[in-house]
């Protein structure tokens, strides 16, 4: 368990590029695995199908989850994570463009650790990602490191 991996679940390549850019700008150098939809995210986390060679106990340090995803949407991915005995303690940060109260409530209600509304302004996005990195990757003691 040398490197703390970040799992980014994002279907929009533009947003993916911008997020990666924000990580770089925020000087977060962790390994970032990217999956393109909800189903793939679950495959990754459960180490099945395309990811069957992955070590299922190698859990990401934090999951960055978009809400609107192809196949299985973000809320369902979140629910599945929280229902699984092994995965339920993995921090999940919702990263979305929705500012709807409804979405916010659904995320926190299903056990999201944090909710970030993607700002249009890149500066502010970088700021947000920086805060995220400081908290979830540096300050927050993960269970795996104990």
């Amino acid at each position, binding site marked *: 368990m040398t490197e703390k991996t970040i799992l980014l679940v994002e279907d929009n390549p*533009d*947003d993916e590029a*911008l997020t990666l850019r924000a990580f770089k700008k925020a000087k977060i150098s962790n390994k970032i695995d990217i999956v393109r939809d909800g189903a793939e995210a679950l495959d990754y986390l459960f180490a099945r199908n395309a990811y069957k060679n992955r070590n299922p106990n190698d859990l990401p340090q934090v999951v960055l989850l978009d809400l609107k995803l192809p196949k299985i949407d973000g809320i369902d991915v979140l629910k599945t994570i929280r229902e699984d005995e092994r995965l339920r303690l993995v921090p999940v940060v919702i990263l979305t*463009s929705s500012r709807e109260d409804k979405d916010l409530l659904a995320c926190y209600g299903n056990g999201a650790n944090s909710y970030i509304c993607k*700002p*249009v*302004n890149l500066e502010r996005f970088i700021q947000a990602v920086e805060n995220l990195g400081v908290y979830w990757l540096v300050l927050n003691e993960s269970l795996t490191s104990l």
Partner: protein
Amino acid sequence: MTQTSLESGMQPYYRTAKLLGALTIAISISVIFGWFLDIDILKRLSSHWAAMRFNTAVCLGLCGLILVTIKPSISRRISVMHQMLAVIVLAITLATLSEVIFNIDLHVDRLLFVPAVTASGAALSLRMATSTAVCLTIFGAAQILWPYCEKQGRWFLQLCVLAIVVFTLFTIGAYIFQEPNFHGPTRIVEMAFHTAFGLGMLSWGFLLATPTEGFMARFCSNTIGGNIARRFVPWVILVEFGLSWIRLIGQRQGYYSTEFAVVLMAELTVVSFAALIWFHAGTLNDLEEQIDGQRRLLESVVTNLGEGVVVADAEGKFLLFNSAAERVLGQGLTDAPISQWSERYGMFMPDRTTPYASADLPLARACRGENTDNVEMFVRHDRLPKGVFISVTGRPLRNADGNISGGVVVVRDVTDLKQHIIEMGQLNATLQVRNAELSASNQELEAFSYSVSHDLRAPIRSIVGFTTALSEDCGASIPPEGKAHIARILGAGQRMAELIDGLLSLSRITRREITHDTVNLSDMARQIISDLQQRNHQRPIDLDISEGVVATGDAAMLRSLLQNLLENAWKYTGKQPNPHIEFGSRKDGDRRVYYVRDNGAGFDMAYSQKLFRPFQRLHPNRDFEGTGIGLATAQRIVHRLGGTIWAEAKVDQGASFYFTLAEGDAT
């Protein structure tokens, strides 16, 4: 009328009966004293008259005792006492009578009192007068039998007692008129004057003490008949006795002949009764006029009543059928028997086809003593081919005895009402459809908003993000002109994002559910201004926020409202050397008006109509940045909270925004 109220009106008769009883006792006691002390004047009033015997005085006293203790409803103990007193009286009188009839001496006259030998020395008979004994026997028997008698028996007992009254009246008259048989040494009738008087009072008292029974009921009743009877009887007695006495005196003095006396007597009687009758005829006429007036009033009320009224007697004969009933039912009264009513009047069940059973009609049921309320039925016949729906309420009518004497129904035409209800039902159904449509379109709107929120922002983010990346990564190779273009792209993207956010927040207000909180608007305003100052490098501002302005409403919406108005004020005072923002409230009638006032750029009131429309701006973006959503949002919030918003302004002299909230907010 209930029994108690009937008897409470009879109190004066009982009181009079008691008084008569007391007077009789007084006479009795004085005579007993007369016998003990041998005072002749007390025994016989006048030396030539018969004396009241000791036994008579005792019996009168006992009977008087019965009368003074009489009440509308007497206890069992008093009732037993009455019976015992009556038995004692009866024992004395019956013993006396048997002495007379069987010609024996049982010494009844000396049983209670033995007088000293009188001055005259004559062996005076102390036996009660036979007529007195008969009268007292009748009285005592009536008293004993009364509780065991029913209606007719009581009639008979009253008649017997009345006979005593008549007899004593006769005796008194005979004494007054000095009829020789009653008067003086040769008298054959032995009843003493005060015995007659006492017996008369007792008997009359007995009759008055039964004011609700037998023939006394008519005499004592509070009806016109009772009143007239009570006036006539004393008048007749007074006039007849008075006139007779005058005639007798005149004749004895030899003022006129017997013939003249008879004519005079007849004449005076005629005049006196004519006067009495004439006087009472007037009273009766007045009464009839009153009754007639009331009858006419009731008649006109019933006739002009908007609702139909039909009255029938217990046999189903119509007694009243007002014009409204005729109009509603399409025909007036007929002589149809109850069994044919349904057919004759075309009565159907509300389904319009099943004939109504005549016996079940509200009037038929009312005539049987049943109440019915708002029974709905349908009426259709030749004269009402389209038919009408009616609502009928029926009540039985009762006579004074409480027996059913018929029934009354009130009939209302409810066709229009029913039509209205049907229309209302249809309207309601339409409304429900509309409501479903509305809720569907609301859901669409929500889906749209969601999609805008998520999908529309993504491309803008890309545009802004990659343009930023472009300028950062390749900034060195871009000429200044290109950098200017990039700046414009970034500005436009930023603005587009703001517009989308504004639109979304506007739509959120429409969709949000309202809560009812008590909010301190003064604190809220102060906090909003303080946030604004922090964000704008502590720009100096002259603030005037009224203390303790409290409102009732949705806290989040009120915050958004104040935020929009104060940010507006903040923005438009930006170019003012001495910016001033004021917040407060004032009472206007029963509503509270809140205001936010500034001394900023203001606007031309000619455009005030456009002020609250989304994306409408009164200032170019160059002067004051903005999306044109803020005031539209403010207005939508105020409307949702049940109030109104308006503005007053002048160019360069500042603007004032006023708003009210829901009616209950006024405190």
